[in-house]
């Protein structure tokens, strides 16, 4: 009885060492005959080496060394079908057009290592680094001064006292202006006189979307009823990645009589679209959903598309692309840049043609906001 236990322990240990030894051998074997550079990229389409190779063909000839760009996402990373993906889209487009070499990083679930990642990537010889999301504030504030040779693009960010000579450009968006227009669209399309807003996490940034949406809906119909709900409270940021809760809340709003619901909840918005379909089919009367950040009609499943009235566009991709372009051309400038209605940095989408009948009214409102005749509140 005693001996087998010893044996099993020994067996486990020797198995471990065997496997380890085997791993060592296996690692070297395939690498040697092949050119190391070609092996990895083949397996992984979004591997950065791969993209760099593509651009080398056309751009390297005229421009020597590639510009090295680092991008640190917010929690969720590439693939969230929302905010982070918008930044990724800008990066992808820049990779096609310019000779750049990109490294992408994503913080841990709680986001507490943003600072370490920003510092790490800054020390790896990059020329331009993006911090995607307002939460990089402290990380940016402490890192940027230590790396004067590196430029920083800070999406949604704010730092005090930036000037043209700073190595940080804060890239802000007038989300309330874009939300104002989709709020107006919601009120114009609503037949029940009741609309809804679902926020991902109750933070000041998302309250901006809410304030704009409410103002836009009231602009059209001062008596409109607006249901407002947030999925989670900080420091719990799961509200941006929780489609199940988004669906529950949306079903509640539709059941309560709202017929247009707007979300600013990142990946949770998928639940809203599903709820719109589900409620429309079970009740027989069509309800609408409004997307956010990117044109979600284009990325949604085909069966969900007909429920997406419009999307509030927040052109994070444009901000990323233009900042990279400036870096490549050597005229990066620090300071503050705001992407608003006047520069089409925010707006609304028309895919699907569901807002075609109200486009004129929306354009009028847009012109009024740009001209300053309507001032959209950015908090409530």
């Amino acid at each position: 009885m005693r001996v087998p236990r010893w044996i099993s322990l020994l067996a486990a240990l020797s198995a471990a060492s065997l496997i380890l030894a085997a791993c060592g051998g296996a690692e070297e074997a395939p690498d040697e005959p092949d050119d190391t550079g070609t092996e990895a990229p083949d397996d992984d389409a979004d591997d950065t080496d791969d993209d760099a190779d593509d651009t080398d063909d056309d751009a390297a000839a005229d421009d020597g060394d590639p510009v090295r760009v680092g991008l640190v996402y917010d929690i969720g990373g590439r693939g969230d079908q929302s905010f982070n993906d918008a930044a990724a889209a800008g990066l992808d487009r820049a990779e096609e057009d310019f000779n750049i070499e990109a490294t992408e990083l994503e913080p841990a679930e709680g986001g507490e290592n943003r600072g370490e990642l920003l510092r790490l990537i800054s020390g790896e010889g990059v020329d331009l680094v993006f911090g995607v999301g307002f939460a990089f504030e402290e990380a940016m504030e402490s890192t940027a001064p230590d790396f004067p040779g590196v430029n920083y693009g800070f999406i949604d960010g704010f730092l005090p006292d930036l000037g043209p000579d700073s190595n940080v450009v804060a890239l802000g968006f007038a989300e309330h202006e874009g939300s104002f227009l989709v709020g107006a669209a919601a009120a114009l399309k609503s037949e029940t006189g009741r609309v809804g807003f679902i926020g991902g996490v109750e933070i000041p940034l998302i309250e901006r979307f809410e304030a704009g949406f409410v103002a836009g809906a009231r602009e059209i119909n001062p008596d409109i009823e607006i249901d407002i709900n947030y999925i989670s409270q900080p420091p719990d940021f799961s509200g941006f990645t929780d489609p199940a809760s988004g669906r529950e809340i949306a079903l509640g709003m539709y059941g309560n009589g709202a017929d247009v619901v707007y979300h600013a909840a990142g990946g949770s918005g998928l639940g809203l679209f599903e709820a719109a379909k589900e409620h429309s089919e079970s009740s027989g009367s069509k309800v609408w959903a409004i997307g956010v950040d990117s044109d979600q009609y284009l990325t949604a499943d085909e069966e969900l598309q007909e429920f997406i009235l419009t999307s509030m566009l927040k052109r994070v991709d444009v901000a990323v692309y233009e900042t990279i372009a400036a870096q490549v051309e050597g005229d990066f400038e620090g300071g503050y840049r705001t992407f608003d209605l006047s520069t089409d940095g925010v707006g609304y989408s028309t895919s699907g043609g569901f807002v075609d009948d109200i486009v004129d009214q929306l354009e009028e409102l847009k012109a009024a906001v740009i001209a300053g005749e309507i001032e959209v509140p950015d908090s409530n």
Partner: protein
Amino acid sequence: MNLRSALIRLGASLGAILLALALSSIVLLIIDRSPLEAFAAMGSYASRVDSMISIINRAVPLYVSAVAVAVGFQMKLFNIGVEGQYRIAALVAAWVGGAVALPGILHVSLIILVAALVGAAWSSIAGILKAFRGVHEVISTIMLNFIGTGLGAWLLANHFREETEGGSLIIATARIPESGRLPSLNPVLEGLGVEVPSGSDLHSFVLFAILLGVGYYVLIWRTRLGYDLRAFGANPGAAEASGVNLKRMTLITMAISGAFAGLVVMGPVLGSFHRYTTDIPIELGFTGIAVALVGRNRPVQMALAALLFAFLNRSAQILDFRGIPKEIETIIGGVIILTVVIANELARRVIQAQEVRDAAAKTARDDEEGPA
């Protein structure tokens, strides 16, 4: 005898870690990445000065969290509520710290004291429910995590929040004034000839964490209370028959566990954030359970386990640069927990078998010698 047991345990732990590395290597090979390259990248990245500082800073909260869990484990109380306890404790402590101005040591002591008291108060809810209503602490502490997170969010957003300037969107309490912050240990490191890169600060709370570890050891193995606690863990019926009050012990143990839990993020709060923000690390309470499990509730072993998890956590950051998914860290960590727990159990049985054999041999010897 003891040396042999220690060697068996050491061997089992090392074997478990090797086995975990081997299993992770298989995963890496499956996704067509070189394990050696991955481990080498992690190793060389982790041996940088700033990495080592970061590993210690990361290990401290894990260690304190593990100690909090271990106090409960000693009497078979499963405190899964460390997560909620440290969040609410850190919030209130940071708010108090930002609201008062006191001379240095008093200020820091006050913040730490408030954190411990709030943690203890929060965990005591579960203690009271268990002692007087028989509510299982696993259920109540999990529920209290949600309530604590919600309550904390509400307090922060509506009462404790400091209006920030201009376009800042960070939600945070007021900053703790200079007198309430713990200095970094960088001057000491520099005195030892270590060149500390900019942006790296070794939190001096690590010294406090070592004291906590000593305090834990003394409490559990050198006091009457600790003896009763372990007696309960080993055999509740016998302990109660010998006159120990179960209700009282449950209340005291939950409160002490919560007090330790309240201190979990004091290192980052006093050392680098200087306020409570939404960036305060989360999930430390749950990782603490793993650390306590791997460290078998022993003060030194838990410290090693905390360092191991901190090492994995920090060093995995480099993997994205090498085209290796950093999620491999989660796999390694999970596999280590499994293999170490299994190895510990194997070692325990082996040692027990040895002891039985030794005792049998001794009895046999005594029997032979006895009549003579």
